[in-house]
């Protein structure tokens, strides 16, 4: 049943390509499709919510190569499907005002969502790669046609980086396929094959970095701020909220599951690193701190949020590297939490502020005293910022809590570094909020005729804040899906480490 999330999205695309569709109809079709996707996910959620892997469909596709069309979902996939559904709906709501080539916009948007759903559901590695690459082209067009600052450059950069990432993954996967006898690409079966250690030692970092590029692993993250800033609001929400999670999901689901021995100690030390785990943990930490520090000095409002995404994804990657149940759970939870919150932050910056004031320069906004004219936007941004710094009561807190607990045992110094990153996070968020909304600079106030916040925007905001609040106050809803999933046999190789 969950496979219908994919099919509905692509059916939506087809519906939008019909010649007689008006912009109004296009928006409604898109909204219905997005809601349909979420409804399907919730249906699957209620149907079986114990977090274990359920196979949805498994048919041979290319028998001579052992490739199957195999979709399945476990707790982790369900959480991410939920995230996609929520952010998709919010994205459609926040794009309600797009007038230029509306049909094509929503067509590309739904195609992207369909691809993302596909990645989260695929168990056959070939199929996963297919959906992963399907998602690249709509991203390009969304940014290049409807974007803003330097959109063509940003779109090309994003597309090429993503493609390079998937190329790296392709190399690793084909090599694994061949070394294991070329009989199957199935994610359940593959990990049981004892890949030789030296093979895992180079295949693991290759595939991890390949997915890591999309996840914003430092130093391969440079596409992210440029891309997010250039993209139109809904695309930024999806990019930062969901697509970056594709990368992290790939790291967990593919790299770490297929090549668990790749994380083992090398036996020798280079510059203080003894294994790929040390290297990637440090890169994650650098991402956290670097992203935060660069966000602190930005003049463009959207760039602040863009760099903050890099910083938050660093938490996800750090959590993955802790290899403990609490750390991995925190990583998955952070994927969900940051997805929602990044969506909300970009919505405020892009849709509520930029579409009205046509500027993102903090110095200009400082003079506009926006909290008087669009208090809803100000309040939303305040709540979203607090949630994203990890204020208790919102989803970010529990996620970061778990990652930090996990990090304490594995990399105590990095845990302190991450704490430092949180403090800087507070600083840049607060700076942005003060300058953009409660600015005290002398200057003419904004034109009093700023359009009020429309109904679709309010609904979208409520959806996102509601999701973050619910999970923040009652994280058991998601935790009871994720923890059994992490305890399943699929992760047994990882578990030998320390659980």
């Amino acid at each position, binding site marked *: 049943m969950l496979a219908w999330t994919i099919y509905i999205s692509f059916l939506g695309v087809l519906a939008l390509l019909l010649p007689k569709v008006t912009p109004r109809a296009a928006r409604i079709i898109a909204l219905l499709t997005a809601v349909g996707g979420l409804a399907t996910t919730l249906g699957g959620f209620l149907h079986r919510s114990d977090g274990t892997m359920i196979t949805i469909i498994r048919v041979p596709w290319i028998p001579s190569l052992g490739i199957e069309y195999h979709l399945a979902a476990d707790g982790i996939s369900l959480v991410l499907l939920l995230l996609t559904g929520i952010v998709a709906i919010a994205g459609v709501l926040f794009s309600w005002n797009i007038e230029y080539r509306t049909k094509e916009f929503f067509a590309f948007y739904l195609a992207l969502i369909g691809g993302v759903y596909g990645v989260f559901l695929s168990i056959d590695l070939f199929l996963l790669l297919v959906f992963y690459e399907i998602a690249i082209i709509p991203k390009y067009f969304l940014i290049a046609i409807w974007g803003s600052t330097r959109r063509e450059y940003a779109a090309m950069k994003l597309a090429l980086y993503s493609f390079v990432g998937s190329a790296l993954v392709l190399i690793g996967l084909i090599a694994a396929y061949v070394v294991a006898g070329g009989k199957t690409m199935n994610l359940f079966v593959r990990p049981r094959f004892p890949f030789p250690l030296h093979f895992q030692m180079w295949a693991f970092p290759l595939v991890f970095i390949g997915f890591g590029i999309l996840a914003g692993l430092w130093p391969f993250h440079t596409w992210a701020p440029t891309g997010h800033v250039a993209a139109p609001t809904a695309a930024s929400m999806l990019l930062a909220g969901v697509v970056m999670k594709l990368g992290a999901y790939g790291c967990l689901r593919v790299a770490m599951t297929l090549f668990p021995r790749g994380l083992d100690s090398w036996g020798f030390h280079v510059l203080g690193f003894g294994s790929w785990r040390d290297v990637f943990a440090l890169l994650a930490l650098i991402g956290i701190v670097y992203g935060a520090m660069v966000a602190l000095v930005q003049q463009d409002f959207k760039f602040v949020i863009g760099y903050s995404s890099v910083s938050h994804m660093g938490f996800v990657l750090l959590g993955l590297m802790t290899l403990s149940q609490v750390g991995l*759970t925190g990583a998955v939870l952070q994927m969900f939490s940051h997805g929602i919150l990044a969506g909300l932050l970009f919505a405020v910056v892009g849709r509520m502020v930029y579409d009205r004031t046509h500027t993102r320069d903090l110095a200009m906004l400082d003079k506009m005293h926006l909290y008087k004219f669009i208090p809803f936007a100000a309040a939303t941004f305040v709540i979203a910022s607090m949630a994203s710094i990890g204020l*208790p009561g919102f989803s970010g807190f529990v996620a970061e*809590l778990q990652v930090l607990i996990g990090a304490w045992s594995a990399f105590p110094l990095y845990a302190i570094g991450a*704490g430092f990153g949180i*403090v800087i996070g507070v600083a840049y968020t607060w700076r942005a909020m003060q300058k953009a909304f*409660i600015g005290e600079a002398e200057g003419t106030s904004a034109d009093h005729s700023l359009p009020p916040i429309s109904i679709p925007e309010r609904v979208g905001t409520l959806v996102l804040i509601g999701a973050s609040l619910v999970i923040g106050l009652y994280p058991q809803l998601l935790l009871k899906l994720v923890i059994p999933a992490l305890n399943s046999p699929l992760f047994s190789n990882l578990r030998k480490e320390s659980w």
Partner: protein
Amino acid sequence: MNAFPFISLLTAVPLIGALGTLSFGARNKNFARNLAFSSSIVALALTLVLCYRFDSGSGELQFQELHSWIPAIGVEYHLGVDGLGLVMLLLSAIVVPMSIAASWQVKEGPQLYFSLILFLQAGLFGTFTALNFVHWFFFWELSLIPAFFLIRLWGGPQRATAATQFFVYTMVGSVALLLAFLAIFQCTNSFDFISLGELARNGQLIPALASKLGWHRLAAEIIALIIFCGVFLGFAVKVPLIPFHTWLPPAYAEAQSGTTMLLTGTMSKMGVYGFLRILLPIFCVEMRSVLTHLLWLAVATIVLSAFAALAQNDLKRILAYSSINHLGYCMLGIFAAARFTGDSAALATDKVAALDGVILQMFNHGLTAATLFWFVSLLEKRSGGLRGLNDFGGLRKVIPVFCGLMGIALFSSLGLPGLNGFIGEFLIFRGVFPLATWTAALAVIGLLVTAIFILTILQRVFSGPLNERWSTMPDLSIGERLALLPPIAIMFVLGLYPQLVLGVINSTVVKMVQQVRY
């Protein structure tokens, strides 16, 4: 256990009030004010009911509620009150209506202002009753945000810097707290204050920390000390202790006086409460190892802040430094009580006295300081915003009732016997002298200097030649007199009959001292 969820209900009242004020108060400002005030009165009433039903004889936690919240990481919804918590709840419940009354005339966005105050109150109620770290941290942070906005949006000319400083200091402290407790959780698998205290008493805390956090070549005691420093930082910023105090004078000065009442009346007590509830039971051993330094910090806080107050010209700043000074006595009492005294019964009694004094001082100072800031706000209203020490003179002739009542509050702050301020300080000194004689002796300097600056206020503002500008200043109206009556009355009542509060807290304190005996 898990009887009628009284405390959850109590915490929910200001939350509901805040949401109501925010949603419905936008149209009608009066409605906002009235709703907020009624909500705070309801909370006060509930707190009084709680006091009535509280069993003062036992030192145990009462009205406990325990629910599982996030089992995977040991987070529980766990709260309860003992004597300490009850007194703090009462203080919050009293100060908040005072603050609302003092801010009755706020012009811009009153619904937001009052709802922020109510959110703050909910945060306070939660902080003073929570017993599981994550649960407690949630409310700790919840109280921080409204305070920031209260300063930032309604404050004086330098409010941006003041608010930011306030926020940054407190955040850094909070993060340090969080990291330290996460480390503790990693090693002991528990976030619960009570069980952690027990672990510490059994001497199992340090080995647990050392085994799981075996950072290369560090001795177990050093690891525990580092964790202790993290937690200490979190609370030291809040009290504040010198040298972490620099955020306080600007914040108190720039905020609207109604806000400052809250800040000084309740939020500063959060820091001291943290020392009592968390640091003392769990980290007593570490405190002992650095006791001398801590005592000196306390003395520095007391003395230096008093001298600083002497040098100020702005009434609010004087009172701000005086706040630091008064809480310094609390810290002195706590640190002295941490000293290892084995089974000595006499010294145990001294500790009981010291801690009794600390809690009493918290309550009294909260009330008195809040009242004093209320008076300053009334004065500001009449003077059109001026509040410098030298701006006034001879006001006694023009507004005698005002000066009389403010004089009472000032004398209470000074520690005049017969008013509530005396007992707390007396008990603290009574307890600290045997335990840490030299520090107590030095702390007396603080008392002297406090007397000087308070008398200076009395002299410059109330007495002396009349400043012609204020010859037509209106005195307190009937409404204001009625509003100010309760706090002044309490000052007298508690001054003459402190047993009212002491009776409630004594058994709790005795238990606390017993727990520190190891």
